[in-house]
């Protein structure tokens, strides 16, 4: 299987929030919980850029490192998921996450009252049986198991938000960068996946092809 990643192309993102409602629609995420958000920088002045942000499914995910109940796990596609049955709603992951991805249904409340953490699953469901009602109710859709990509990226209005296999995503982005001659910095990419990750990945692929 490939290594799943997100990449948001700031030169293309128009802050339409299509990704946000696609996520709500696909996963029936309740009011107040936003697995995905669009963040705008330099709002209203030249240089304005927007970025769609959710869990980036980091290579060395800080949330996994700090979780006291070890409820996180990583799938073979590199998707970071968690087990809500183990989650105690402590919020450590929220403080560790560089992207503000973990959400709590009861919002900023006292310890123990926040509810179980919820976040983007890359539309890959959770630890319950694939495609089951329990999986859907706790974690949302499992599109990956159906051979589909996350709803947010599939529906992105300008194809700014890319999701999928690391090498394909970077190929598409590289092609755009070459065409327009700018916009090289893929926002959040280094934070999430580190500098060496891509090279390691490419190396693995080369070895695999031999």
């Amino acid at each position, binding site marked *: *299987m*490939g290594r799943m990643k997100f990449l948001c192309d700031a030169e293309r993102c*128009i*802050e*339409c*929030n*299509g990704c*946000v*409602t*696609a996520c*709500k*629609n*696909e996963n029936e995420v309740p*009011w*107040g919980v936003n697995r995905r958000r669009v963040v705008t920088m330099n*709002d*209203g002045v*030249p240089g*304005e*850029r*927007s970025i769609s942000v959710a869990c980036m499914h980091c290579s060395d995910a800080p949330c996994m490192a700090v979780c006291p109940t070890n409820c*996180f*796990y*990583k*799938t*073979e*596609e590199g*998707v970071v998921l968690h087990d809500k049955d183990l989650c105690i709603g402590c919020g450590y992951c929220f403080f560790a996450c560089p992207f503000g991805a973990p959400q709590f249904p009861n919002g900023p409340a006292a310890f123990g009252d926040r509810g179980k953490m919820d976040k983007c699953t890359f539309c890959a469901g959770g*630890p319950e*049986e*694939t*495609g089951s*009602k329990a999986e859907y109710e706790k974690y949302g*859709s*499992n599109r*990956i*198991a*159906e*051979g*589909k*990509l996350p*709803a947010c990226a*599939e*529906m992105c*209005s*300008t*194809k700014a*938000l890319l*999701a*999928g*296999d690391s*090498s*394909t*995503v970077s190929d*598409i982005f590289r092609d*755009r960068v070459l*065409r327009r001659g700018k916009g090289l910095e893929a926002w959040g990419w280094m934070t999430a996946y580190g500098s060496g990750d891509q090279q390691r990945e490419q190396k*693995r*692929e080369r070895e*695999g092809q031999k």
Partner: protein
Amino acid sequence: MLTKKAAVAAGAGRRLRNAAARIVGQTMDRRAFLKRSGLGVGAGAIATQLPYNLIGSAEAANTAEKRTGSGNEEVRRTICTHCSVGCAADAVVKNGVWVRQEAVFDSPINLGAHCAKGAALREHGHGEHRLKYPMKLVDGKYQKISWEQALNEVGDRLLKIREESGPDATYWIGSSKHNNEQAYLLRKFVSFWGTNNCDHQARICHSTTVAGVANTWGYGAMTNSYNDMQNAKAALYIGSNAAEAHPVSMLHLLHAKENGCKVVVVDPRFTRTAAKGDYYVRIRSGTDIPFIWGMLYHIFQNGWEDKAYIQARVYGLDKVKEEVMKWTPDKVTEVTGIPEEQVFKTAEILAKNRPSTVVWCMGQTQHTVGNANVRAMCILQLVLGNVGVSGGGTNIFRGHDNVQGATDVGPNPDSLPGYYGLAAGSWKHWASVWGVDYEWIKGRYVSQAMMEKSGITVSRWIDGVLENNELIDQDSNLRAVVYWGHAPNSQTRGAEMVEAMMKLDTLVVIDPYPSATAAMAAMVRKDGVYLLPASTQFETYGSCTASNRSIQWREKVIEPLFESKPDHTIMYAFAKKFGFADELVKNIKLEKDAQGWDEPNIEDILREINRGTWTIGYTGQSPERLKLHMKNMHTFDVKTLKAVGGPCDGEYFGLPWPCFGTPEMKHPGTPNLYDTSKHVMDGGGNFRANFGVERNGESLLAEDGSASKGADLQMGYPEFDHVLLKKLGWWDELTEAEKVAAEGKNWKTDPSGGIIRVAMKNHGCHPFGNAKARALVWNFPDPVPLHREPIYSPRPDLVEKYPTHDDKMAFWRLPTLYKSLQTKVKDISREYPLVMTSGRLVEYEGGGEETRSNPWLAELQQEMFCEVNPKDANDQGIRNGDYMWVESPTKARLKVRAQVTPRVGPGTVFLPFHFSGWWQGEDMLKYYPDGAAPIVRGEAINTATTYGYDPVTMMQETKTTLCRVMKA
């Protein structure tokens, strides 16, 4: 179940990944790249290479079954109802419930993409905040009633008014959210009621475009397409914020931009579209003509005009040039506030990067000079030789999902379907298509004069109620209004609207979300208001026309929710009550719905449209052809919209009108209007000969050698009729039956389509002739577009130099003020110093009740706000996030959140127009019918907007008025 960490079967994973990579490598063509960017994930990659329906049935079904229990699952293809781009979406329906929404990567228009609204379509399957059953206002509160009672009481009240005051005492506000068939049926319905007092959203969105553009070169529509913008080398957006209003169009633009297209955005606001542009120009609201003339000044000065094109295809440019050359750079800067170098640079970008295209929306149209604004834009494109050219054109983005279609065939006060007008000949043409007697229809009207007189417009219905009876151009004032799929808060002068609502005898609202009108009425009335639940377009089926004139077919996704009924079913029910049911559906079969109501068959309605609408080529798009396109979307090329092979080979997606002749003639549709580089049977064309053949001794026809490719007549020629056909010796190419039908007729009224067939198919000629475009529209108030200051102008000095028009009497049946009002309020900017303008937000649509009732959208924009520049905010002591008051010269006051931002310049404030449900500081929640209030409510900007109308179409002025702001 997904494996836990450390349990990765690395070997197997790698093998799969490599297999996927190989498949992707082989099949990843350019189109696939565009279609599913981000494609190429392990199993996902393999699966997505399969035909879509295979995934749908094999895997998705399995999942959904587990999710929702057993049952049949079906995928139904529909079109988003929130704007004119026409994004396709697949609805997965299980046991009658809309359980999932999937992207349609095959659609050449949106390639699976959606904005916030499109990605939230499935909420229509919930509809929690909808009107669920008929209701009636009783003693100030809405009470549930039965459909039977509703139809009887409403019917009786309207019939009584008709009896007492005549058919013109009623007003019917139709909808651009009706599909083509419903919009068309409503025009017919209103005609049989006996009035032309009907209208819909097009009046207040692009009526000035339709009139201005059609009078320039023939058809009042977007000339090219969203897709064709991929071919542009430069694009000018003026008065359009496409990133919020038409987000998926940006898919095509950004693709063009990555291939070198230069994007210029001209707007009073630094919009999200401007953020994606290469060059931004801030203009003072309402000064578009001086800016365009300023550009043309530089174009003429530098010899950048396309002289050969102008000589062959443009009439009357000399007169325009005289006016343009008066607009020296200093004057342009004085009026627009734009430095000369920016005007020059914009002109240079457009001139040196051809083909260049222009895009405009409400920023151009909703002005007292709207018709002149859009003609100035047409002239700019003609001068640059950009019209009838792929990558060029005037890409006019329409608003609602079917506003183009409702304009083409729907309830317009000045025309029967297909822009036939209201002359006796037009009535006779349609009477014969409808299979009813012309004399019978005439008998339904007060007189032939009223039958041929344009009705009141939706922008002015309030004056039809409030104006002195002696001053209006019909017998009675309006006594009843039917809001049939239209928001009240999209019309200006809201403060006066409640007075009009108060004065009415009867107010009927037919809508899935009638609540804004309901609440406004309940605020001022105790009774006489009826709310009837209509279904959305997802609960019925039919065709809709996107902005690029492509027609798409929606399948019914779910059965009508609650007690709602589709609009055409309601029309038929009322027709029965009014006594013209048989006439309404003479050629249309009826079907029984689940509750035993009669529902007119939509396919039959479309076939009737096909049989009558020759003028604009709505004749070739039979239901069968449209459905074939929807099934074979993947065969159409994204850049050209042309099918390559397959069952639709050579046709353009959605058979964009004009698709001339009968369906059997197989015209492919017209992707880009007036394109002489193509044969007419391949979608080519030229400018329309609709304004005579000569004027003051000068020919209006195109010059020799300037005709569409392969035409037998390589010269200008008039439109075709039986006489021309005989003169050319082509008459005998008609069949005997066609000869009988075509005798004495022209191409627009020949019911056999024979004249069109012979002209196009046999001789490659355009049935509407081949003329020059008119830079000089002599039948308009300003034949050459002139700058005129808005009525409420921030510049009294310029009002003197560039005053507005003289007042008009009996204009669309009403007296209309211009100069007398402008003179009266000339110095009002001393008290109200800021320009107040309005626009869209991406999350909401139109009046906003529907989208503000959708929790997925409502969560993203929870409060009405006003954008105000830091300077103006600081001068008033307003801080970001504070409540503030916005007060207009009408004294209406809006309480909104301050958004302090340099997005607007000093001296201008911006408010979005999608809110309603607050009235001058108070939440109107208690006036809503129980359970039908939208989640988010806020002040409607139009509560405070002022008087002002376009002198051709009665378009309302929303974009330039004045206000003052203060801390609340």
